Structures are given as structure tokens and as C-alpha cells.
């Protein structure tokens, strides 16, 4: 692996101005709050965290669909803003959650998959057709589906079409935002196998966003845990799943329901005090729900502390840690 990360975020913040009432003055909402991340070539970075914590916003920034309010996004060490937009679109492609609404129902599968080629004027129609045939083969669809429409396909087939569309430009980085959560488990496993295969075969790099932690554990090699716009822990997949540090990571992993009958539903010890992102709790954003909160947690925000294979942001660790 080369030293320059293929994708890097440096102190990226995205602030939305949101109104809470019709005549209220807008207030800032930090959907992404000073996030720094690196993804090496060929890595799968899993991004987890509860609904509304900023995962999709982060994905949109990486795809150039949203501009960061502050901070920089770098691809191969070069800042994104400085690069040609279409060049970037070629290198970073998305796969979204819903294979039902993300495909235009009036376009044939051929039109859908070849669209990026036509938009970017890649090759003539003969070479475009060849490319579509190749990519269909790679994602495991028969060539005859080219002339069919999304409504005639199953959920898994549609998600394969979405993957084919993302891969036809031969991107280096694929941003997957909940790529299998709308699918049956019998179909989910096919897509996960396919993503794994494509990574091994083409050295693809993924940012993989999912609520399903078992799936993240299966596919990712690094994991970042997000809470209210901040990355509160980042580690290798073993580091996180076998030795998590942050209390929120712990609650998250506690709530994974493995298919073991008779074990009952675990107690996450998480309070129900859902935070308001417009007015986040002072100090550590997580303190009102944290079972391990200490007096300083409601006073000062914890610093980022490096760990053996990542980092954590919590008063329990580092120089600030309580000496017991």
C-alpha cells in the first residue's frame, strides 16, 4: 500500500442552516463536525453510527454532491476542488440504498448502465455496448437483461444494475451507502460476495456505510464510528469488534443480535435521551446517554487520543484519563 491515502478528509465540517418554525431564524446544524479520515487503496472503511449522525452527508461530500463548509477532501493527495469535476466523477462512484428508486423506470437497463459513458463521452457506441456487456458479466447478469426495464427485475438484480452503473467508469473508489439494507438476506449475501470479489479482483476501495454491524464486520477492514457528526472511534475491524474502547461503540456492538436462540435481547444501557443536533450536549456529545460518564464529561469535549491501531475520543483514555 502506498503511503498517500487514496482518499483523505482533513478537518471537514458541513454546517446546514435549519429553520425549526416558519418564522424562526435559521440555526446552524453541524451534520459533519471536524472529521479527518484516511482510506488507503484497496481498503474497505466501514462507517457506522445511528440515524442522523452524518454518514450520508459525509458520503455526499466525498461524491462532490455537497461542498464542505470547512476543511479539505483529497484524492491521491490532491485537493478535490482543484481537480476537474468529471475526472472526479469517474474516479469516485456511488451505490445507494434503494435499488427501486435509484433506477429510472423509463430507461432500459442498457441506457441506465451506459449513461455515465455517454455523459463523459467515453468511446463510440460499439465500444460502449462492449463495455456494458463486460460489466454485466462481472456483476453476474445475463446480457439479455440489456433490453429490459427495472420493473421487470428483482431487488437483487436491480442492485446489480446499480453496481454495474457505478463500475462502468472503472472507478477506484466506491461509496456504498446502505447498499444491501433494502434487500432480502438471500440477496444481500450475493451482493456482499460480489463487492468482496470486485475488491479483490480490481483493487477497489470502498467507503461502506451500514446499520448492519455484522455485515460491516464481515466486509470492512477498518471501521469508523460516528456520533453526532464526529468520528468518536476508528480502528481496524479486529480492533473495533474485539476490543472496542468508546462507550458508544460498546453500546452499538452490544445491540447486535446474533442468531442465537434463547439469548434474549441485550440491554444497551443507553438512555433514550436522543440528542438534538441543533443544540448538541456540552462537553462530550454522548454524555447524557453514557453509562460511564464522569463529571468532566459534561464540561469539556474529549480530545482525540491515538490507540495502537486507530484513535478514540473519550475522557476514559489518554492523558486526560482518570487514574484509578
Amino acid at each position, binding site marked *: 500500500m502506498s503511503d498517500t491515502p487514496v482518499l483523505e478528509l482533513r478537518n471537514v465540517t458541513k454546517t446546514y442552516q435549519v429553520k425549526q418554525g416558519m418564522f424562526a431564524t435559521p440555526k446552524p446544524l453541524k451534520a459533519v463536525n471536524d472529521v479527518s479520515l484516511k482510506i488507503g487503496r484497496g481498503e474497505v472503511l466501514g462507517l457506522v453510527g445511528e440515524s442522523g449522525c452524518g454518514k450520508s452527508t459525509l458520503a455526499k461530500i466525498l461524491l462532490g454532491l455537497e461542498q464542505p463548509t470547512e476543511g479539505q477532501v483529497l484524492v491521491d493527495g490532491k485537493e478535490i476542488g482543484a481537480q476537474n469535476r468529471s475526472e472526479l466523477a469517474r474516479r469516485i462512484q456511488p451505490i445507494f440504498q434503494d435499488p427501486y428508486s435509484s433506477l429510472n423506470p423509463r430507461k432500459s437497463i442498457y441506457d441506465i448502465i451506459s449513461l455515465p459513458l455517454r455523459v463523459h463521452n467515453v468511446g463510440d457506441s460499439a465500444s460502449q455496448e462492449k463495455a456494458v456487456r463486460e460489466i454485466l458479466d462481472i456483476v453476474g447478469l445475463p446480457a439479455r437483461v440489456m433490453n429490459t426495464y427495472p420493473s421487470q427485475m428483482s431487488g437483487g438484480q436491480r442492485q446489480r444494475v446499480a453496481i454495474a452503473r457505478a463500475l462502468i467508469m472503472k472507478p477506484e473508489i466506491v461509496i456504498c451507502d446502505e447498499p444491501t439494507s433494502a434487500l432480502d438476506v438471500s440477496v444481500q449475501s*450475493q451482493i456482499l460476495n460480489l463487492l468482496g470479489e470486485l475488491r479483490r479482483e480490481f483493487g477497489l476501495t470502498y467507503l461502506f456505510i451500514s446499520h448492519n454491524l455484522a455485515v460491516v464486520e464481515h466486509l470492512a477492514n477498518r471501521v469508523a464510528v460516528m456520533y453526532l457528526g464526529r468520528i468518536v472511534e476508528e480502528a481496524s475491524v479486529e480492533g473495533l469488534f474485539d476490543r472496542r474502547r468508546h462507550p458508544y461503540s460498546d453500546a452499538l456492538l452490544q445491540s447486535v443480535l446474533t442468531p442465537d436462540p434463547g*439469548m434474549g435481547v441485550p440491554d444497551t444501557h443507553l438512555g*433514550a435521551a436522543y440528542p438534538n443536533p441543533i443544540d448538541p450536549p456540552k462537553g462530550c456529545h454522548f454524555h447524557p446517554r453514557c453509562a460511564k460518564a464522569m463529571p468532566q464529561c459534561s464540561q469539556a469535549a474529549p480530545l482525540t487520543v491515538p490507540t495502537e491501531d486507530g484513535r478514540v475520543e473519550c475522557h476514559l483514555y489518554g492523558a486526560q484519563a482518570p487514574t484509578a
Partner: protein
Amino acid sequence: MTDTPILSVRNLTIDIPVGGGTLHAVRGIDFDLNRGETLCIVGESGSGKSLTSLALMGLLGKKISRRADRMEFDGIDLMKTSQRGMRKLRGLRMSMIFQEPMTSLNPAYTIGDQLAEALLLHKKVSREQARARAVELLEKVGITAAKSRLSQYPHQLSGGLRQRVMIAMALMCEPELIIADEPTTALDVTIQAQILRLLVDLQKELGMAMILITHDLGVVARVADKVAVMYAGELVETGPAADVFGAPAHPYTRGLLRCIPVPGKTERGAELGTIPGIVPSLVGEVSGCPFRTRCDHAVDACRQPIPLREQQAGRHSFRCVHPDGRAASPQEVPA
């Protein structure tokens, strides 16, 4: 168990007229549910799980036809109960939590009014008592500052909060049977665990029977006493959770269990099991085993009527031509 089941269903069949003919969406389902017991229905999207629960609640659309040899709730024949009788039963003794919370919350009324109404309609209580009960239940489902929520409208709540309100609403009358259709699918895993715990606790506390519909095998394993696996409108396997997970008999059930990565068991990054192929169309005549287009054990006999195989004195049963759910020369990779 000797007590008579609170819910008993035999040969439930649901047909829907569609453009090209009749969709045989649910075909001959049998199950029993005892008081205080949880049945989880799991299965492929479109296999008829929601229709089955709507049929039990008497909420199928007018065009949809429902037949059954028996469909009894505490000895009451649901097939013969009038619309009015069903409405009464629904509020008072059986209630439902829907897949999409917005379908059962009225955007024009406050949370407090909707919760109170659920009780006022069916029980002789004052408005104050009804509101007090609403606050009590909102607190139970983990909503902080419950009193102040009463004056809020559904759209002012997050998805997770709405789902909790739905659960509180379903519990207002302390029903004897609760049917929850994917109650946690749209929620975060942490909230999912909290809500499931709550449902299980309340169910034990109130002695309710529960039918929980879900895609999530983890949820099933942790919550179910009994499991029913549906495929293309049929119940292909039913049994106690420990048996269905420990010794799955139907090839589809075994296939499903191989598809999911299991933390601590499945090697990270290893190839997962798959069930290639798609669900058959259920429009027009349906015969034989509906799983045969995807089954590694299929033989010619799978086109004929499929026998029901019973194990453990009928507690665990499945439908397959093979007595043990496997062909003599299996092509299936072991789990």
C-alpha cells in the same frame, strides 16, 4: 402445553385479483399461538407475511378474498365476525403495529389525542384518565418528557419516536394479542434493541401473545418462542426457535441461515452462502413446491403436492418431499 391456544389458524388462503388473473398470495397456512407466547414470522419479501397479519385483523382490502377452515381468536370465529365486531376486537383485545408508522398515525391530530382516543373508544374512562395512561405508556416505551409530547403532531417526531408512539398506542387497551409487522426495521440497531426489549418485557408483564414479523434472523432468534418460515405464500417450516435454528429442516431455512454473516462464527471476508434465483410468480395456478426453482435438493416429485413432515410430536414441522429435507446425494455445501 395443555391450554387452548388464543389464536388458531387452519388452511388460511388469500387470493388477490390482479391484471393477469389471480395472485395466490397465501396458500393454506396453519398455526397456533398460546397466551404469553411469541411467534416470529420470517421470510422473503412478498412471501405474504403482512397479508397474513392483515387477514387476522380483518383489515384486508375489499377485493382481496380470504378463506380458512378455521381462524379463531379465543374461541371467537374471526371468519364470521362482522366488520363492527372486528373493529371492537381490534381496539380492545388485539392490536397491530404496522410496518410504516405513518399509516396509522393521523397527521392532523396530536399524539395525546390519538393515544387517548384509542382508550376512550373502547373503555369507560375519563379523558384525564386516558391522558394519564398515555403518559404512563409513553414513558414505558422510553420517551422522555412524555407529558410535553402529548401536544406534538406526528411530523414533529423522529422515526424512532413515532415508532415508539405506535407501540404505546397498540398497548393502550392492554390487548391479549399484538401483531407487530417489522416494528424495528427502520430503526437504528441500538433503538431496535431497546424497543424489542421493551416489547418482550411488556409482553411478559401483561401475558400478551405476540406475532412479530421480521426479515432479521437475529431478531427472530432472540425474541421468538416459535418460528414460522414463509416462502412464496406458504409456511415451509414451523417450530420452536431452538429447533428451527439448531436443526433447520427445510432447504430454504438452511439456505437463509447460511446467507448471514454471524459475528464470531463466520470468518471475516469469507464467501457467504447464497440462494440464487428468484421467487416464482404466484399468478395463475400454483402447484408443487414453490422453492423448487432455487432448491439444491429438488427432484421430479417436487412438482407434485408436498407432504408435511412432522418431528417432535408435531411441534416442529416442514414441507418437503424428502423426509429429512435432503436429497440422497446432496449438492448443498455444509454450513
